[in-house]
């Protein structure tokens, strides 16, 4: 591909993806991220990485694949991803992340990133900064997107009158997480809930939950979310969160942090 034209090719590809996204949006509506729940997301992840690996075999023979794994695709895809994110930032419309054009442009950037990671997969010392930054970001993007359907967040409203066994999700469905919480005291000054935990066939015990100090219980993390005082007694609103993909996302985040350290310690790579 001609030197000057390969950026243009990138922008054309991105315009095409945005158009396909628009058509999809009109035809089938926004993406319902919740359909990607386990094991669908694990299958999607395996399929995505397998396809990237297989496609990489033909890299040297296929100009388009070689281009996707190059800086010539990285520049337009990064700028386009930045641009759609700016649009999201201006409109502030929370449905943007379910918009097909937005998703396809992010997916294009992620695909280019993944193919580049495979192309540069060497564990020589000078390549470590590259691997930390790029594989780290790849892991964060893919696992955060695919893992979001498995993330559960429940609201539990507790009061001082009796133990609360029920919680609801954001669609209003009720759950019983297997333990009950009763509010003993709420400190309005420090935003701390003193709680008693009840479990079937176990002695009650006391815990504290406050902003920035969640408490882990039976696989759930309990966060202080809100508080109200209705005259006849205080209620504290707690968030119960379970996110099985979190360790994977954190692995990516810590790789990126280490990568940022190497950015400060090393010189920029030589130009080709």
């Amino acid at each position, binding site marked *: 591909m001609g030197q000057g034209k390969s950026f243009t090719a990138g922008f054309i590809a991105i315009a095409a993806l945005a158009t396909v996204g628009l058509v999809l949006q009109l035809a089938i509506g926004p993406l319902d991220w919740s359909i990607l729940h386990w094991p669908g997301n694990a299958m999607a992840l395996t399929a995505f990485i397998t396809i990237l690996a297989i496609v990489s075999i033909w890299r040297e023979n296929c100009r388009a694949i070689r281009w996707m794994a190059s800086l010539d695709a*990285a520049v337009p895809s990064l700028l386009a991803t930045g641009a759609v*994110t700016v649009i999201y930032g201006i409109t502030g419309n929370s449905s943007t992340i379910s918009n097909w054009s937005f998703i396809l442009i992010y997916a294009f950037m992620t695909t280019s990133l993944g193919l580049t990671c495979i192309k540069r997969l060497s564990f020589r010392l000078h390549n470590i900064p590259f691997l930390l930054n790029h594989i780290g970001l790849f892991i964060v993007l893919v696992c955060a997107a695919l893992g979001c359907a498995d993330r559960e967040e429940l609201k539990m409203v507790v009061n001082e009158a009796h133990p609360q066994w029920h919680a609801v999700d954001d669609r209003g469905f009720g759950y019983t997480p297997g333990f009950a919480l009763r509010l003993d005291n709420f400190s309005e000054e420090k*935003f701390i809930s003193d709680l008693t935990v009840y479990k079937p066939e176990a002695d009650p015990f006391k815990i504290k939950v406050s902003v920035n100090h969640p408490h882990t219980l039976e696989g759930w993390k309990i*966060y202080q979310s809100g508080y109200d005082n209705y005259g006849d007694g205080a209620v504290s609103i707690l*968030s119960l*969160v379970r996110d099985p993909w*979190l360790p994977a996302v954190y692995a990516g985040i810590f790789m990126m942090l280490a990568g940022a350290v190497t950015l*400060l310690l090393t010189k920029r790579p030589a130009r080709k």
Partner: protein
Amino acid sequence: MIGWNIFIYFAAAAVVFWAAGALSAWKGASKVSLAASSAGMLSLCTFIAGLWISSGIPPLRTMGETRLWYSLFLCMAGLIVYSRHGYRWIPTFSTVMSTVFIFINLFKPQIHTQPLMPALQSPWFAPHVIVYMFCYGLLGAATIVGLYLLWAESRKPEEELRQMISTSDSLVRAGLAFMTFGMLFGALWAKQAWGHYWTWDPKETWAAATWMIYLGYLHLRLSRPEKRKAAIWILLAAFLSLQMCWWGINFLPSAAGSVHTY
């Protein structure tokens, strides 16, 4: 007790020292310039430290307080670039920029003495904001290099232009590293405080956009060093996005519910 009421003395000392540093850089006295600029920073540091000690919390909460750090780190970034590359105009630039922020603080003091809101009471708070301030300082410096390059494009010899843009590359590289720290510290903190590392809060959205655009700049510089002008325009666009992220979103209706607007 150090408070905003005596800020003007520290500010005046800092500005006078910085101006002396800028002047001596033009005269070629680099050691005097470095010493004077450092003395100016020391004055500002003393005020920040005093504010920190007398309130017991890091002064990072209000726009007024973050402007103090911006002045400080802008000057520090200028000092590092000047001592490394020796451009005579750098201390002048950092002096003007730092002074602007000091004047804003003098004329629009934001004195807040109320206790910190619970969400901000976290060990992540200080590192999150300090690395961002450092990043803003470095990228502010890179922006000025970019503006200079736009002006110098047809006026200065090619060799100087190449040197200048490689300065900008180094600044963006370091600035982006600090931005990555800031963004990811923010993500880890958000998980701890609100239960999720990323919620597309307006500040997060603009931070992600800014991060991508600066990455676009660095990758363009790697792939096509000869496309200097395009790179500079991307650099300037990225800086605008950074301004939106820093304070612009406070004026966006879509950001009314942001967890970052206090």
